[in-house]
């Protein structure tokens, strides 16, 4: 199978869906030139740097029969449009009693790795999970990116598809033919039996590297990628933990009220899963400061494979430690 980058996979998904459905159109600052060339200015709208208004316009167009794809570029810019996201897009279908559909796909990069400092390297995907009414997607591979983004564009609801900045150039196998990855379905990226590591986006790759390192020490790690944060595939995660009895959650945002906190809770509050837990659940997240600029500082703040290895060792040794 051919390999393409994560960024390319996203671009292909948009172009293919725009070919498929004439009601789709694209809104962003600095229009992507290949899209513009293929679809023209009518369907590839180059908007002012005014997120509040173009995000709202997407809602109005969606409520009028269109299927807009809005690219905020970086998640930090989405905050400028927060009223339209939190008060309007998330609530408009529900508060009007479901009388109209609002099929909108929002895209934005999250994450560090580029020394882009506090405003441009944050990972606030967890914040959006608190707004009932939005579906939230965070893919880790080119295959998942393309399939989930296509599913998002075809979905009749507002969906935010986050791109992981660190993964934009990562290559992976992507079929040429049309496919979608269903929203709300987790994926086991590596089967194992001793410890479950639920990881998101870039940390899926770090978890896989950690699993390789740990395999050499005789510890078998199962890596589960939720892929969709809302709705979360609780059953796949719980089933994995019931099998291994141990859980580490790795996510690039801070731990407080986060995706990692939610995953920890959905495992511990389920009696059948809790009964199988043999160790406390650990979270491997970024430290809770704004992301600093200098590479030494940035690397210190973000989680990585070594911290996942440490956490896995800790949960494996927890019973022994408790017995001492």
């Amino acid at each position, binding site marked *: 199978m051919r390999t393409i980058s994560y960024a390319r996979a996203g671009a292909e998904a948009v172009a293919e869906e725009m070919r498929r459905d004439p009601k789709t*159109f694209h809104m962003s600052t600095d229009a992507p030139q290949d899209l513009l060339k293929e679809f023209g200015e*009518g369907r590839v*709208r180059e*908007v*002012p740097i*005014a997120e*509040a*208004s*173009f*995000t*709202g*316009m*997407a*809602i*109005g*167009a*969606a*409520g*009028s*029969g*269109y299927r*807009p794809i809005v690219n905020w570029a970086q998640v930090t810019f989405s905050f400028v449009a927060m*009223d*339209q996201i939190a*008060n*309007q897009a998330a609530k*408009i*279908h*529900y*508060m*009007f*009693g*479901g*009388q*109209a*559909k*609002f*099929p909108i796909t929002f895209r934005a990069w999250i994450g560090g790795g580029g020394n882009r400092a506090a405003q441009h390297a944050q990972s606030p995907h967890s914040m959006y999970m608190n707004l*009932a*009414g939005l*579906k939230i997607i965070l893919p880790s591979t080119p295959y998942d990116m393309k399939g989930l983004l296509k599913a998002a564009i075809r979905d*009749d*609801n507002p969906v935010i598809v986050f791109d992981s900045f660190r993964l934009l150039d990562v290559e992976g196998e992507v079929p040429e033919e049309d496919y979608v990855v269903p929203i709300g379905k987790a994926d086991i990226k590596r089967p194992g039996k001793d410890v479950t590591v639920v990881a998101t986006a870039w940390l899926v790759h770090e978890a896989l590297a950690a699993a390789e390192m740990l395999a050499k020490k005789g510890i078998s790690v199962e890596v589960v990628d939720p892929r969709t944060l809302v709705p979360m595939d609780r059953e796949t995660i719980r089933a994995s933990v019931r099998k291994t009895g141990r859980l580490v959650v790795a996510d690039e945002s801070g731990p407080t009220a986060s995706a990692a906190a939610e995953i920890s809770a959905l495992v511990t509050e389920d009696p059948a899963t809790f009964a199988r837990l043999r160790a406390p659940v650990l979270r491997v997240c970024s430290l809770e400061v704004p992301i600093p600029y200098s590479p030494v500082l940035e690397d210190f703040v973000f989680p990585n494979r070594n911290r996942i290895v440490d956490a896995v060792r800790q949960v494996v040794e927890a019973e022994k430690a408790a017995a001492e």
Partner: protein
Amino acid sequence: MNPSPEIQRNMLRLMQTIRRFEERASDDYQAGDIYGALHCYIGEEAAAVGVCSALERDDKIISTHRGHGHCIAKGADLDRMMAELYGRETGYCKGKGGSMHIADFDIGMLGANGIVAAGIPIVTGAGLAAQMDGKGRVAVAFFGDGASNAGPFHESLNIAAAWKLPVIYVCENNHWAAQTPSSATLALPDVASRATAYGIPGVLVDGNDVLAVHEAASKAVARARAGEGPTLLECKTYRWRKHTERKQQLDRRPIEEVESWKQRDPIPRLIAHIRSQQGQLSEAEWEEMDREILARIERAVAYAKASPFPRPEEALEDLFA
């Protein structure tokens, strides 16, 4: 240029319906049958009716927290409106919205909205959709003087002007943003003058003169349908009641100011016009019209009261399409 006597009578009926609907809603709110927040539009009826009478059913509007007038003027069903205020299953939003979120997408009413200025970009997007559809439809943003100070107003006017979107921006300048006089927050007293910055027509009308509003709106609609772009239409008007119907609601407005605006009531003004121009609408006819309106609202209240509340579990429905 004035619309036909029949249309003028219909305008009168709609304005009086808005007024009677809200008088009743306010009473029922005080009685505890209507919940949350209720913002009355009484005194401003000529703006909604003057503008909506220049529109077709397929044209779209968006409203504000003070939205009953826009709903009624665009043709919303009084039964379903009242049922929504009563929190019933048969309401427009199945009891999930209430006064601040009534919408009727079938008649192009894209919703009342509890966030000042938030509807302006949304309906600008409906204008973009209308332009892409190419069927000559237009979109109308209703908003107040308060919203004209907010970013989304300026952003939307800019992009609508740049793309020649078929949108009419209707500022209902009622001189007060909640408790704050617009004189304290507007750099220039006339919102319409801001149109200059975007190279579009800025039209100022007496918002209590429904025929003047209708004429100005008709011109703006014709311009939008012809693909010539947006218009900013400012209707100077006044709300007679406090910001909300809450008993403890503060009201800083001078009583003389409120009273002076009541002397400029848009409803007797239209009645006087109808009588002077056409020599018709006797006192008895007007009383009969008002009786019909009151009876219609009584039926809406009866419908609401006879309707069931939603089952509690319905709170979990309609999260996603």
